Every structure is written in structure tokens, then in C-alpha cells.
């Protein structure tokens, strides 16, 4: 279950507390520790090529009874909006989405904030609940919040997004 640091370990632990059986992910350097942590814990990984594809696959798994989560980056929500609205929201298919944020401290990509900054507003505009986790939040809160977001998503039959701060692992190692 070891991820890159106490915060990401706690995020993985919270998902395991919920009982996650499967996760669909779009590869990301920032979320890689979470992906590897879930894999190490024996949660079945499904890799998708695009974020809307991840929504489709995860939604199908949820309809068939799986406790499935999506792990992705926040800049992929632009790809996923139509799938989230016309499928997950419209059909009440609830699953948690954990997305690392980009464009903040430690960012090295000069244009990524143009999508990452408005993501919370975009998601709220389409009626998706957004939770945030930052390094100023205690580690215990990360774990509890990760579990609670998953429980909320299945209870409300809607996707719930958790946006979490994660430095690029290489930058983190240099600190």
C-alpha cells in the first residue's frame, strides 16, 4: 500500500477502507503513487486511454455492482464532461473520482493551469460535488475524506470528485 508520502498513503488507505474493488485510471506521474499503491494492495487496475473512456468503463462496472473508483488528473475533466453529464449524472451512476491537481506549486508545464484552474467551477456547473485535499489538511483527514467521498458517491448515486494536491514525485524528492 506504500505510496510516495503520508498524504497519498492516506488517500489509498481511505479508498481501501471503503472497500474499493477496482479502479480505472488514466496514467499520470502525479497520481502514479496512488495507482501503484492500489495495485500493491490487490485492487484490480483498468487503464483507459482517455478520461471519458474511464467514465464509461467505471460506470459500466458500477452498474454491474463493482465498488470502482477513477484515478486521473484534473486537466482530463475537459475530455470527460459529456460522459459525466449524459451518462453518469443522467443515469445516476455513482462512483468516486480522485484527481490530482495541476498548475499550482511545483508546476513545470506553462499552459496546464488554463484547464486546471477552472476545473472546480466546471464540475460544480454540471452539478458534480467537489471535495479538496491539500497539504495543509491533516493526514487523517485525507484518509477519512477519501472514504467519505466514495460513500457519498454511492449513496447519492452521483460521481463525487476529490481534487488532491500532489507534487510531481521528482520535485518532491528534491525538496
Amino acid at each position, binding site marked *: 500500500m506504500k505510496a510516495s508520502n503520508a498524504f497519498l498513503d492516506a488517500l489509498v488507505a481511505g479508498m481501501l477502507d471503503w472497500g474499493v474493488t477496482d479502479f480505472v485510471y488514466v496514467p499520470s506521474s502525479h497520481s502514479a503513487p496512488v495507482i501503484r499503491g492500489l495495485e500493491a494492495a490487490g485492487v484490480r487496475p483498468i487503464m483507459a*486511454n482517455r478520461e471519458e473512456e474511464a*467514465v464509461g468503463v467505471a460506470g*459500466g462496472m458500477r*452498474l454491474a*455492482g463493482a465498488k470502482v473508483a477513477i484515478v486521473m488528473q484534473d486537466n482530463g475533466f475537459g475530455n470527460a464532461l459529456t460522459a459525466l453529464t449524459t451518462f453518469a449524472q443522467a443515469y445516476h451512476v455513482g462512483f468516486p473520482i480522485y484527481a490530482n491537481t495541476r498548475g499550482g506549486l511545483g508546476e513545470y508545464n506553462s499552459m496546464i493551469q488554463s484547464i486546471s484552474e477552472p476545473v472546480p467551477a466546471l464540475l460544480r456547473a454540471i452539478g458534480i460535488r467537489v471535495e479538496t485535499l491539500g497539504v495543509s489538511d491533516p493526514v487523517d483527514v485525507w484518509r477519512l475524506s477519501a472514504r467519505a467521498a466514495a460513500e457519498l458517491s454511492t449513496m447519492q448515486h452521483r460521481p463525487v470528485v476529490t481534487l488532491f494536491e500532489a507534487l510531481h514525485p521528482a520535485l518532491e524528492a528534491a525538496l
Partner: protein
Amino acid sequence: MNRLDALRVIDRLFAEHLLIVTCGATARELAAISCRPNHLPLLDSMGLTSAVGLGVALSHPGPVGVIDGDGSILMGFSVLPTLACYAPANLTVIVLDNGQHASADGMPSQAAQVDIAGAADGLGLVTVRVDGPDELGSAVSTALTSHGFHLILAKIETGNTAGIPFRLDDPVVMADQFRLAADRLRRSGVAGAAGA
């Protein structure tokens, strides 16, 4: 073979199995034949059908079908390599290929120029090409009784059937019926083919 001919064959063979159905006239024409709780139309999620079907198949022990269209699968084409990577043995994807976006004023799709089945072949998927209802029925029956993922590309005539009403069902209700049907099938052990 027109679309209704193809849908009658698929509906009969998937009468007791989970089936995900693409949007537009395909969903409406299938509803004109039957409305089963174990069949889930995605009324406005063009390009997503095969991804949803893949997800269902990965988490359900019995056979799962997808009715996609050439325009729809081209829109979500990134799912083809994902299907090839995971290829659940209980999944059959049927692409009804009329070479056009029949629900978008009949504009031609790129399938009129490119070979979707060839792309699937190239990805290593077991791909079958059919032209008529008997061939389609035989291909679907083979897929349902053999252990392995199948992609069936069925050539159909252009155009939509006239006089078919819109589907105005509540998606929430359809999804709930589908969940219950999946659970019922899981409990009853209607498997036929093992899951992935």
C-alpha cells in the same frame, strides 16, 4: 439487411443477457421491437457504448453484449485498444455499420472510407464480418457459446426506419432496472460464458 432486421436478431439472442445499446435511431428502433430491463440504451452518450459495455463485462459473470454504430465507435475509438488489452471473454461487441451518421442528416461516416474491422483485426481482436441476418445470428450465437471476446461488424443498409417515436424514458429508471436485472442474472447463475 436493414437495422431493424439486425436488431431483431440481436434482441432475440440477447433476450436474457445484458446488452448496452448506442444512442439515436438504434436505441429507438430496438425499443420498437422490445424494451427489456436487461437492455440499457445510452440515449445521448455517443461514443461511450463500448466503454460502458467493457465495464459491465469486467464486473458481471455472464454474457454481455454491446450494440454500437460505426459513427459511435469512431467517436470513441480509443476504446478499441482498451478492448484488445482486457478482452473479457464474456463480451460481444456488435457494430452496425451503415457507413453514415443516419441520425445526423445521413452524413457519411469515415467508415465509408476506412475499415473498422481491419483496425480491430490489427489490434488482435477476434473480428467477424457479416452481411445478412442469418450470418449475424450465426456469429452472435458462436460468440455466446465460445469462450472469448468477439467483435462483429455487421454491414446494414443506410437510413433510419420511418415512424419510430423518440425514447422519452427516464434514464434513472432504465439504469435502475438494468442494475436489478444484472443482479438477478448474477444470482440466477445465468452465465453461459465466464467473465474476464
